[in-house]
């Protein structure tokens, strides 16, 4: 249902096709797409990008990377073992090939030989182990620690790296494409987090945190059909109006985020292309499933039917997104459940569930801040309006942005959250829905779900996996404790001077954060 509505509603008054393709994962693009895509990539030029993040407190330590500036810099400067291609499939990068044992517990990665670092030297199996070990262990301060926790052992055998996991995981190679897990040169089994050396497409030339970075092409780069620019500049422009202005006045060629309130003005400016990609990024409203009244699934369902998703997508996202169905799997995921009924605004049904819970009316507080996602507070206000006619009094409490993630999120019973999403179902579910996961933000624990999660993880049979993931989406949607009203598009813009491939990545902003490697000047 959702896909067809997206496609039929594709070309709207703004003249932009929004939404992801039903198959595959990647998305589609502004009206100029077809024309520009035919050009052959050309070498040269300096790509200047206005980036919506960037803080003076950023650092080169891969364990601290967390915003669009550090992450874009990461993929511009580094290589990883694997790469999520623009169409959502996994392709080799530094790992030439890999194979798993039958139980998906032991994985052998063959490292590509002769890959050069910017400052000389080549990538070795020891470097790979040191780079991943940086995030592991008791003293790890890395934000990526939970995702590499399942690794119990790694050893090098020539150019092979043999990884043993605590339990089978058929998607393990996907994990190695994560932006934290950059492969860096090592000395005595440790990487140097202050070094500028790396092995990616561009090498650092200037770097000032919170201001910008300049990189030049790495001449020895092993991918001969990639990295077309001579140089790449990342400029942190936090203010949305300033960013848009910089693009229009030609001071940058690309901006990674467009203010949805003024996107129509940008569209009218000559020579500008707005690009909207719907992938896995979604905004949610988690409820603490241990706390009354949310411990009763009927109350959760009442709230799910009391929110007007269509209105929220149209108002908060200005149409740049699609409605969510209370589970975190998007149409671009491999095992997206196409058979699930889409929940819609239905005050009568909400009232019915309230009665089932033994309630005539419901009074709840929801704690929101813009730190969770842009428009979170307004989403709450719209929700309160639509919920009122179902007998639910939703009280919107505005919380400070500062300290939101440490004092409100996962601390108070009803809050807002955002997820960029994950390329695989297992990764997303294990991160935020599995029983006992550190980021299980709704403290949800469902026996059947957790059984399926463990059973699906090492399963190498595609059909069986599909069946299990379909059921898990159903479970999260009907019994889960998070309202997911919308999937938000990544909305970017670039000047006519830039050209890009037909299909661009939907897993992150900026063509899967690999714009510097994949795009070129027309």
């Amino acid at each position, binding site marked *: 249902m959702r896909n067809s509505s997206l496609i039929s509603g594709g070309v709207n008054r703004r003249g932009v096709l929004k939404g992801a393709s039903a198959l595959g994962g990647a998305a589609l693009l502004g009206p100029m797409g077809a024309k520009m895509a035919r050009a052959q990539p050309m070498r040269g030029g300096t790509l200047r990008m206005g980036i919506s993040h960037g803080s003076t407190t950023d650092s080169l330590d891969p364990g601290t990377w967390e915003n669009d500036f550090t992450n874009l810099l990461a993929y511009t400067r580094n290589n990883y073992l694997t790469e999520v291609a623009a169409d959502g499939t996994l392709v080799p990068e530094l790992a030439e090939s890999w194979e798993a044992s039958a139980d998906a517990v032991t994985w052998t990665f063959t490292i590509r030989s002769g890959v050069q670092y910017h400052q000389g030297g080549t990538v070795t199996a020891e470097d790979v182990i040191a780079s991943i070990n940086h995030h592991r262990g008791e003293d790890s301060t890395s934000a990526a620690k939970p995702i590499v926790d399942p690794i119990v052992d790694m050893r090098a055998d020539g150019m092979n790296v043999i990884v043993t996991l605590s339990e089978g995981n058929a998607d393990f190679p996907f994990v190695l494409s994560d932006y934290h897990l950059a492969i860096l040169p090592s000395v005595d089994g440790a990487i140097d987090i202050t070094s500028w050396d790396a092995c990616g497409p561009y090498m650092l030339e200037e770097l000032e945190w919170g201001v910008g970075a300049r990189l030049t092409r790495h001449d020895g780069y092993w991918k001969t059909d990639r990295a077309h620019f001579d140089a790449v500049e990342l400029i942190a422009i936090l203010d949305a109006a300033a960013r848009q202005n910089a693009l229009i006045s030609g001071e940058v060629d690309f901006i990674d985020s467009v203010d949805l309130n003024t996107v129509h003005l940008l569209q009218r400016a000559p020579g500008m292309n707005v690009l909207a990609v719907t992938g896995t990024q979604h905004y949610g409203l988690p409820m603490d499933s241990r706390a009354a009244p949310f411990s009763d699934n009927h109350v959760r369902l009442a709230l799910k039917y009391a929110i007007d998703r269509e209105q929220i997508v149209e108002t908060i996202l200005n149409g740049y997104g699609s409605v969510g169905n209370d589970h975190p799997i998007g149409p671009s995921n491999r095992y997206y459940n196409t058979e699930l009924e889409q929940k819609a605004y239905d005050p009568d049904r909400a009232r019915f569930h309230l009665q089932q819970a033994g309630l005539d009316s419901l009074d709840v507080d929801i704690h929101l801040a813009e730190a969770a996602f842009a428009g979170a507070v307004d989403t709450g206000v719209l929700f309160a309006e639509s919920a009122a006619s179902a007998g639910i009094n939703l009280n919107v409490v505005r919380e400070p942005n*500062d300290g939101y*993630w440490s004092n409100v999120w996962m601390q108070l019973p009803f809050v807002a959250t955002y997820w960029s999403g994950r390329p695989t179902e297992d990764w997303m579910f294990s991160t935020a829905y599995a029983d006992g996961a550190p980021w299980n933000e709704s403290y949800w624990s469902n026996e059947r779900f957790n059984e399926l999660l463990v059973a699906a993880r090492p399963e190498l049979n595609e059909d069986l996996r599909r069946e299990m993931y379909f059921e898990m989406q159903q479970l999260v949607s009907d019994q889960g404790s998070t309202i997911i009203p919308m999937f938000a598009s990544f909305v970017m813009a670039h000047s006519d001077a830039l050209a890009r491939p037909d299909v661009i990545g939907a897993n992150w902003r900026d063509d899967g954060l690999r714009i510097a490697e994949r795009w070129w000047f027309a």
Partner: protein
Amino acid sequence: MSHIWSMIAQRLALGLLTLFIVSVLIFLATELLPGDFAEEILGQSATPETVAAIRRELGLDQPMVTRYFQWLGGAVQGDFGNSLANRRPVAELIGTRLGNTLFLALYAAAIAVPLSLALGILVALFRNSAFDRIANASALTAISFPEFFVAYILILWFAGAGGYFPSLSTLRGDPDLLEKLYRAFLPALTLTLVVTAHMMRMTRAAIINLLASPYIEMARLKGMNPMRVIVKHALPNALAPIINVIAINLAYLITGVVVVEVVFVYPGLGQLMVDSVASRDMPVVQAVALIFAAAYVLLNLLADVLSTLSNPRLIHRR
């Protein structure tokens, strides 16, 4: 003259005490904020284990008093420590940004101070004329708009497509002075518009206040022309309040321009302060706060010294 020197010495000593108190207050205020560095830097990704590991590594698990005195011990020896976030020495982190902030403040002051003095004298001369009213109304309008609005208007007029000036003031590489002046023109102009009204109106008020004095009456009765009366006779006696208001505005130009920095992407101290407070990066917050406090202390001292020097009755005190 000697009492001026002793005043300066005394005020500097008091200034040091002020800085010490400021450092204690800033430290306590940072501690009072919910969440510490480990939690803020990890944000949504924080888990109890990684938070604990970061605290261990940076010594944040030590008691508050211990951490303060460790920092103070370094600071009195001129070592402001390393940023918690990227482990770079605070001095290095602040160096270029302090330079940028001072450059922009001086640039704006170089336009705003002569402009507001000249305008202030002129509106005093032509007080209650149409010129007086227009000048006052425009200056008050400019100060009443929020800074970011003034900035956007200037961008719209002077930058934009085919504009005369860049809307991004980022200083990259090693630009020469002319390039720096060109790049920073719009932010400097924005700040000029924001601070001019205060100084201009103070100049006007201080001068007009004196115009009823007997000695001005005398000058006028002698047939001196009005401009000469104001510049030669009224202005020297009005200098003290004018100098004070200029000092306050200069301090503001150094410490309060974060909004302008953000809109024009100008890498100054304001943004550094905001980022560091947001991540609870205590050594950087302390260092920037001390610079801001020192700016106020020194500019106020300078204003007092100049006021004293401008008044013969205070120099030749008996």
